[in-house]
């Protein structure tokens, strides 16, 4: 009896905490379906008009496009560099490997603002402020540590004896990479791609300072509109879409590759 009671109690507690954490997101999603002109909760009548408006809004459309482009390019670069670095660190076991690893992950420990300021002053010297390559490089800088961390863990988990066994069976290094290392690293590659993309897509701090007026990403656009025009149902609709997109990505990632274990 007592255990059943305590089970029920702990369930209630857990649900309450979850509700507390998720409530704002639920509010966001519900209000996105409201037909009114201003933010209301709960919605009075349901409509998809704000989703339509969001998808047709020229500024949001271009910002979403910029964010996606920036996210995809910087993620590809960051994951490639991170994988190469991680492979070298784990398999090559260089003399100062641990120091290199710490350096590679160090950006995780500094506030983004510090990075932004550092990049800003370097870019000013190079005349790269406000350019797309500058922005891409900045995003590579902030996403690389996340990708590197996942890839280092991934390669450490792959038994080097598997690669040795493949070699003894006649596989040259390229075949070992293609048939053994890459397939085994695939879950890690997909996880780091997803995380790097989300980090890039979410960034406001570094982007605001580096991007200038030419390359306004979605979160930066949303942020500035929030400040100038208050809560706009279009923003809410886009927010809802992103939440759903992210949840789908994470659920699929967790299901397929146990994303959370790699963080």
């Amino acid at each position, binding site marked *: 009896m007592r255990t059943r009671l305590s089970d029920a109690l702990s369930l209630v507690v857990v649900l309450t905490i979850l509700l507390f954490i998720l409530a704002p997101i639920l509010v966001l999603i519900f209000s996105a379906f409201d037909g009114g002109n201003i933010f209301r909760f709960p919605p009075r009548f349901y409509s998809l008009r704000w989703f339509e408006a969001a998808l047709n809004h020229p500024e949001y459309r271009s910002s979403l496009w910029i964010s996606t482009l920036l996210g995809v390019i910087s993620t590809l670069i960051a994951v490639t560099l991170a994988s190469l670095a991680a492979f070298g660190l784990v398999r090559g076991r260089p003399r100062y490997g641990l120091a290199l690893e710490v350096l590679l992950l160090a950006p995780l420990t500094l506030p983004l603002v510090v990075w932004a300021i550092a990049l800003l002053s370097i870019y000013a010297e190079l005349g790269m402020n406000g350019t797309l390559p500058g922005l891409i490089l900045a995003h590579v800088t902030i996403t690389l540590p996340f990708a590197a961390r996942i890839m280092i863990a991934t390669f450490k988990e792959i038994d080097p004896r598997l690669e*040795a*066994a493949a070699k*003894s*069976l*006649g*596989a040259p290094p390229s075949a070992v990479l293609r048939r053994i290392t890459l397939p*085994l690293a695939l879950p890690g590659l997909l996880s780091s791609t997803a995380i790097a993309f989300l980090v890039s897509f979410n960034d406001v701090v570094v982007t605001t300072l580096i991007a200038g007026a030419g390359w306004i990403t979605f979160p930066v656009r949303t942020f500035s509109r929030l400040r100038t025009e208050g809560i706009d149902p279009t923003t809410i609709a886009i927010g809802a879409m992103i939440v759903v997109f992210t949840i789908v990505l994470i659920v699929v990632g967790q299901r397929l590759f146990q994303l959370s274990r790699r963080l």
Partner: protein
Amino acid sequence: MTETPYLSIRSVGKSYRGVTALHDIDLDVEQGAFVALLGPSGCGKSTLLQILAGLLEPDHGEVRLAGADITRLPPWKRNIGLVFQNYALFPHLSIRQNVRFGLDMMGMGATEAEARVDEALAMVGLDPGLSRRPDELSGGQQQRVAIARAIAIRPRLLLLDEPLSNLDAVLRQKVRLELRELHNRTGITTIMVTHDQAEALATADRIAVMEAGRLLQYEAPQGLYRNPATAFIAGFIGNPAANLLPVIAHDGASWSLPGGALWQPDAALSPARNGVATGAACRMALRPETLALGPAAPGGLAGRIAAVEFTGGEHLVHVEAGQTRLSVRLPAGTPIEGPDIWLFPPKEGPLLFDANTGRRLPNPN
């Protein structure tokens, strides 16, 4: 010049960042032989095996296989099968894909490759219909897959690194016999690493005993047992291994034992007869199965029975003699009267080793 050996290892050495793992190893293996590399953990067996497989490059020395220098040949060009202690099966491939891996690397056609996979799986006693993943198999089955994968490529050399150590005791006995039978059937020249002397004695044609990066002795199992080159080997081979009695030549006829007691053995075992100068320290190897027990008589060693273990076919008697402890194996049913008893070594040329170098002293006659 004699016929060149199939595999020859010439003064191969290797150190890891200053620590020498192998000192100048010389070893020849005949085609079709089953050789065991035997030695305690950390003596460099795996290092030598990896050099043969091409996974490590020796600092110096030469490895020749079938007449060709392969010292710097990359592993994928060697056609040498390798089975790891943990089997190292590819977890993302099915059993058949694992066994087929090397055949695919050769570019073999699908029909022929599938037939070879069937053959290799049958050879190790596995059902060729096995379509599961490696992690769904038991340890014993995984090991068979690893062996099938290595022999499917019809290797010029099969290297096994501690193949039995991850199996339980019962399975180990069974699999070691199967390994030997597999070798008899395939005739593949095989080198097996092990730290278990019983395993080496039971399976190999020749045993290379290693200690601390050096090859101590390379000999057929019976020769190794009868004529160990060092005290270390005598104290390592056999079940249980030889007793090593520390002795100092007191005079031409008697030895002094630890604790100071004097022992005057049969003339054949005396210091004078074995060329040991008075005062020299030696170790005398006494095999448990050659010792006899009985009442006081000339040539005997006085002792006291500490314990008797019954092992089925025989008794293992532990005797305290002065400050040393000796084990004696007697057939079951031998009457044992104790606790005070006398030990009698065989009356022929003893196994004597220099106490400092551990080297075998030359037998007289």
